[in-house]
């Protein structure tokens, strides 16, 4: 298996665009919470020069309706399914994971530990992962926020707590003002910032975590070309997810996959996955040279 191309959670509805979901190696659902959620009041979207802000607020049917109504329809699509789950306490995460544990079609569960548009759970990310771990045997991917000084510390903590992989990164909180009125453009003022501007931040997070833990990493943040995807792989990602680009171009997965293969070959890698850790290895060399080999 080469580098899998996924969607970032919340950036695709497989039921309204099944052909797009089928163009992915796995479809990741919008984050499901224990109870139904109406979501945040509009305005929910604001484009900026190099990306966009969203304030959706985890609108969704809740885990029961998801499991009984939505999941069977998703299963009928014949696409590998990852379910993103979220909540406001460790118990919430455990409850969602437990409900999904017996569903064979759910290949993995992504734990949204870092939505910038809703209240945070009082527990640490590691405690939330531990609670989820106790409720399911399915592979658990912890989705971390880039808004922390040392994301590698959080990565070690969630892996120690039982995470099987990492999803890096979520959006980062941002604000955009109407240039005429100077009022916030979003209904809730701040939102999650994504798109091209997030890419160097995502690369840094993947790079840091790849040195800290030995688990699969789904890299995401501003990827719109195959070269962007290859860079995330070089930084340590084993899979890549597409987010904002899917809004502009639902046919991006096929294009990015083809470009990724060509960009790898152009650099002497038979498979894109062979480029994994290239940036990590290079920077370790640099550190050794920089400190006379004593680092």
């Amino acid at each position: 298996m080469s580098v899998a191309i996924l969607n970032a959670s919340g950036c695709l509805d497989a039921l309204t665009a099944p052909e797009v979901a089928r163009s992915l190696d796995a479809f990741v659902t919008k984050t499901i919470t224990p109870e139904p959620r109406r979501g945040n009041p509009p305005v929910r979207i604001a484009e900026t020069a190099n990306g966009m802000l969203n304030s959706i607020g985890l609108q969704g049917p809740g885990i029961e309706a998801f499991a009984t109504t939505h999941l069977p329809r998703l299963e009928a699509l014949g696409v590998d399914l990852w379910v993103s789950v979220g909540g406001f306490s460790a118990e919430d995460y455990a409850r969602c994971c437990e409900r999904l544990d017996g569903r064979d079609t759910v290949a993995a569960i992504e734990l949204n530990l870092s939505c910038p548009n809703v209240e945070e759970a009082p527990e640490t990310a590691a405690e939330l992962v531990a609670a989820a771990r106790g409720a399911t045997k399915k592979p658990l991917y912890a989705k971390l926020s880039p808004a922390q000084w040392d994301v590698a510390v959080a990565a070690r903590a969630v892996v120690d707590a039982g995470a099987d992989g990492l999803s890096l990164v979520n959006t980062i909180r941002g604000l955009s003002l109407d240039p005429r009125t100077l009022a916030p453009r979003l209904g809730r003022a701040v939102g999650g910032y994504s798109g091209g501007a997030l890419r160097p931040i995502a690369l840094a997070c993947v790079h840091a975590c790849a040195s800290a833990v030995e688990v699969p990493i789904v890299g995401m943040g501003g990827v719109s070309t195959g070269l962007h995807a290859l860079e995330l792989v070089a930084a340590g990602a084993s899979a890549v997810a597409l987010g904002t680009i899917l809004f502009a171009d639902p046919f991006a997965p096929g294009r990015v996959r083809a470009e990724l293969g060509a960009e790898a070959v152009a650099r002497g890698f038979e498979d894109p996955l062979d480029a994994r850790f290239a940036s990590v290895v290079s920077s370790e060399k640099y550190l050794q040279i920089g400190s006379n080999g004593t680092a």
Partner: protein
Amino acid sequence: MRRERLRVVGSEGVGPYVLVRLRRSGLQPGVPGQFFMVEAPGRPLPRPFSLCLAPPGELAFLVEALGPGTTAIAGLDVGDEIHVMGPLGRGFDLDVARPLLVGGGIGVAPFPFLSERLGSPPALLGFRTAFHSEAASLVPNATVVLDPVLVTDALPGDPGDVLACGPEAMLDTLVRLAPGAQLAREAPMACGYGACYGCVVERDGDYVRLCVDGPVVRELPAAA
């Protein structure tokens, strides 16, 4: 769902607006009131536009340059190529006995195509200025009112089957004055195909996606 790279074959001023004409290629015009996501050169996200005209082999959009995206689209030159996706969403129900098109400002954009499909029904159009009202030249059989007169002031007592597009306040008033009116709503949206949940409007206490459940909707007056 179809997305293609289309060539600009014309760009004409209509009052303060710009009519951008594109070679149609493999895209279909769809039903009036459906919309297309049009690439805004240099911007991260495309912009939604309802189709204004569907001349043979072409798709034409009426653009008001307001922000960076619409300014980029209004500034396209003949020969430029942009990605366009569509048609998307639900358009107007054309099975109406006594159609009356009611529009304001750039909201008249879908009416030339709609009027053609309905056999040039009467239209009532409102604009800020005489310069803006030059867009009425695209709509046959149109009566024009200018600020401070509003189309909702000039609406006949028995308006028939209203098909409307325009400012939010105008549409909200029409919900009361013309129950059952078909309203083409607008909301900021990132994707246009149900992926982002950005373009929601409130219906029966829930937020529904305008790109999937609209943009043309029928609304009930709020209970008094």
